């Protein structure tokens, strides 16, 4: 019995046990609190679908049929806008007045404008106007809509349609799609490839969808449209292969899209952040891309793409960890070099994440784990460095991050020069000044270069962020801390899901079938089936 008592720990251990209990509980509570705090903005708020029905039934807003009254109403609503033009004219055939309304700069085809004016002023007849959108005697415009509602009419005009109001007609006519000036189709800036199509998405949704259509002929590519935003509305489309996509997945995406509640969606990043599974995770659960070929490849795997008007970045869901390190080029080049490059990218990602942490743990904690010669040369180079390794690494890492951030903002001709000045001169000067050791410059440079080799920019940011956390772990507990960090990361990743797909598939849950497209890219002839994780309707890739 006395020996039993002897083994009862002293009070400090009991105290420690208390702390042991408190920390996870506090952590849990904090997590819950933060989660709910962020959550109230979006998810938990089960708002009504954000495509509000047009307020068509309101009596005061329908066209009265009285030309002057309607025009007055419109002028009242839109007249304050200096860019809205009212072109009044007389239809000579009928002898009635009409007004063409448009926003300056949204309709740019001068010839078309001239044609429309000529037609309206000299050719338009009563029969044609009486039933504008019927086949036989309609107006000769490709795009023609009838608006029976004044506010809707106003909206459409402001969005760039030609609006036509004619005396004696109880409707407004909307002619032609908006045709604002657009930039030419360029090579995607953030995802450059050596081999592969050189088109990237632009800011115009219709162009983007047409780019998808042009990828190939299929009646199975379905593009459904949504209006999102409560204050300023925008078009958003879902693209998927009808016969491939898992219906449950599609439904899930649709529900999440419909649940989004935000007054304006400036970029697809808004959508991404509002539909992702876990907004406290450092990892992105939605992939963004500006490459149509990447999107179509994802669709062929049974994924769903989300395109928003006004941004060249499309979203692909669900995303898995391995996707972040894959480049479309992997499939365009032959399989052996592609596999090699892909493995290299995994290695680079590991380095980008862990290299500084490993440096700190070796330099400050475990001199016994590195080769003797290396240890001696590190000692020699670190002579006179006044800082502990954590501070030393932080100095250089932060400097590199600032350089990188600055490099993005700089005008193109200066950018590379800045990189050279920053990288070479500052690094060399820091070594000369004895602030950092040359060995560290190598480590930081390798880290930076490794993080450049990650094909997805957003994934790169994640790793850059986590790198600093890893460094803190290493600075406290050495290699033990680094391993702990790695394990926590693994635990987090294995808990994470993207639209119900475990983030780490196919590593785990283990799907042998999908391994052929993970670290390796198997020859195309072996890729007979679509990824198992997507649970597609049709498995076979080859007939």
């Amino acid at each position, binding site marked *: 019995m006395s020996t039993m008592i002897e083994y009862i720990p002293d009070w400090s251990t009991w105290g420690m046990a208390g702390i042991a209990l408190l920390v996870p509980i506090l952590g849990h509570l904090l997590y819950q609190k933060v989660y709910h705090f962020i959550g109230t903005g979006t998810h938990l708020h089960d708002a009504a679908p954000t495509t509000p029905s047009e307020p068509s039934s309101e009596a005061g807003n329908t066209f009265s049929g009285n030309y002057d009254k309607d025009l007055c109403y419109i002028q009242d609503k839109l007249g304050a806008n200096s860019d809205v033009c009212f072109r009044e004219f007389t239809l000579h055939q009928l002898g009635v007045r009409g007004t063409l309304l448009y926003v300056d700069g949204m309709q740019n085809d001068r010839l078309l404008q001239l044609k429309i004016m000529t037609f309206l002023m000299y050719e338009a007849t009563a029969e044609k106007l009486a039933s504008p959108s019927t086949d036989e005697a309609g107006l000769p415009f490709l795009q023609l809509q009838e608006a029976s509602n004044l506010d809707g009419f106003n909206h459409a005009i402001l969005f760039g349609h030609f609006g036509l109001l004619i005396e004696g007609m109880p409707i407004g006519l909307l002619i032609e799609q908006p045709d604002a000036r657009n930039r030419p189709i360029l090579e995607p800036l953030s995802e450059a490839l050596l081999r592969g199509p050189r088109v990237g998405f632009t800011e115009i949704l219709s162009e983007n969808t047409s780019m998808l259509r042009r990828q190939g002929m299929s009646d199975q590519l379905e593009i459904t449209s949504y209006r999102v935003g409560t204050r300023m509305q925008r078009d958003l489309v879902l693209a998927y292969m009808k016969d491939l996509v898992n219906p449950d997945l599609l439904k899930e995406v649709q529900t999440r899209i419909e649940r989004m509640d935000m007054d304006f969606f400036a970029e697809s990043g808004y959508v991404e952040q509002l539909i992702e599974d876990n907004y406290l995770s450092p990892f992105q659960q939605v992939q963004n891309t500006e490459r149509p070929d990447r999107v179509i490849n994802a669709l062929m795997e049974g994924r769903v793409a989300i395109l928003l008007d006004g941004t060249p970045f499309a979203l692909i869901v669900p995303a898995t960890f391995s996707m972040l390190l894959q480049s479309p080029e992997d499939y365009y080049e032959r399989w052996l070099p592609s596999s090699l490059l892909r493995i290299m990218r995994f290695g680079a990602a590991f380095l980008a994440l862990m290299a500084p942490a490993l440096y700190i743990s070796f*330099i400050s904690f475990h*001199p*016994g784990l590195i080769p*003797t010669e290396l240890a001696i040369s590190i*000692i020699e180079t670190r002579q006179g460095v006044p800082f502990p390794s954590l501070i030393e690494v932080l100095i250089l890492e932060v400097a590199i991050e600032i350089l990188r951030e600055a490099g993005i903002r700089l005008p193109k001709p200066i950018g590379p020069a800045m990189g050279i000045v920053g990288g070479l001169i500052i690094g060399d000067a820091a*070594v000369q000044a*004895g602030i950092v050791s040359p060995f560290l410059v190598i480590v930081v440079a390798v880290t930076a270069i490794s993080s450049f080799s990650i094909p997805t920019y957003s994934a790169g940011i994640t790793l850059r962020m986590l790198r600093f956390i890893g460094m803190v772990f290493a600075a406290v507990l050495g290699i033990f801390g680094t391993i702990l960090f790695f394990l926590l990361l693994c635990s987090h990743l294995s808990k994470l899901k993207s639209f119900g797909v475990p983030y780490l598939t196919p590593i785990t849950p283990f799907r042998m079938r999908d391994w052929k497209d993970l670290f390796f890219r198997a020859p195309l002839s072996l890729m007979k089936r679509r990824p198992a994780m997507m649970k597609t309707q049709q498995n076979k890739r080859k007939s």
Partner: protein
Amino acid sequence: MARCIRMLLLSCLMTLLLTSCWSSQEIENLALYSGLALDVGEPAPIEKEFEAKGATYPKQNKVMATVQIVPVKTIGTNSQKQQDQKKPYINISGSGDSILEIFRQFSIRLDQPIIGHHLKVIVVSAELLKQQPIGNVMDFLLRDNDIRPSTMVFVSQGSAKATMESNIASEVPSFHIMGMLRNRSRTSKVLKPVTLSRLDSLIYSERSFMLQNLVTGGEEVELSGAGIIKGSSGKWIGTLNQTDTQCLAWIRNEGTAGTIKVNEGNNNVITYELEDMKSKVTPKVDGDDISFHVELSTEGRIIEVWNDQAPSSSHLNEEEVSQLIKKQLKDMTEESIRKLQKKYQTDVAGFGNRLAIKYPSVWRKVKDRWDEVFSDSEVTFSYELQITDFGSFIED
């Protein structure tokens, strides 16, 4: 209220994290020692000065430890390093009766703690091993967590400290000794290195064994022969010369290369280069009689011939030459075995192991007095020699 407590706890935790980094020590603030020499206890000259001024602690001078610290601390960055740099290492010695205590004593003389992760070479002087059993001397080194079991152990004739000196600038003697072992591919006069982990088992099992011997001369070090440690007492009892070492390495089947030189007549020398050497030891037990048969076989070439009488291609006959070499070999091996059995009465050639594998029950009986039993057992040899070629000469 609850919020306050929560904040308080959180801030406690933060301070805890900030003050942590318990084990953190920058690598440049540590003194790595790459070599350790153990000599007979006698205060080092500097220590004598200290002691004269009363800087002393209660101890008996049983052992003197010298550690070799690399690299030397320099001021400023390495780009401004002076060209006329002095030696890249420092040796520091201290004496006492506990190695750990001596090491801790260094801590009050150096500005950096010494760490043993990169210890490569331990040299123990034969004199010390005459006085102290090797088990005592090495005990700390075997227990310590810093020192890797891959560290190699040598014995030195004369002062061990002297092996840690070098007159070549920019050379670290402990690394030099390590490097010398790489030449085992050229000669079998260098024994397979005894690492601390092997030493551990040798000490524990109380077998006799050999340690590579180091001889110094003019601040140069040579690997020469082997020191014999008697298993039962753990003490050094003598040295085998280079030829014996080569023979024993062969018998233990650890050699890879070497030469056999035959002196024929007054100025005729034939040198045979061993390209392949193998041995097979067969123990025989007949009642209480234990005997061994050793088959040595080799392949090689005649690579150097000095001949007074005629041009080199005159009378060399393959058969004749191989007889000459065999005779030389026989003389060498029998001499070595005679030395082991009669002079030192120890088995360091691994005969015991062969017996233990072949006849475990016999071994169990003789295990405790194996060295004596071995001295009385008969060892016979047979040789097999294959001359593959005569270098780039054609001989017939």
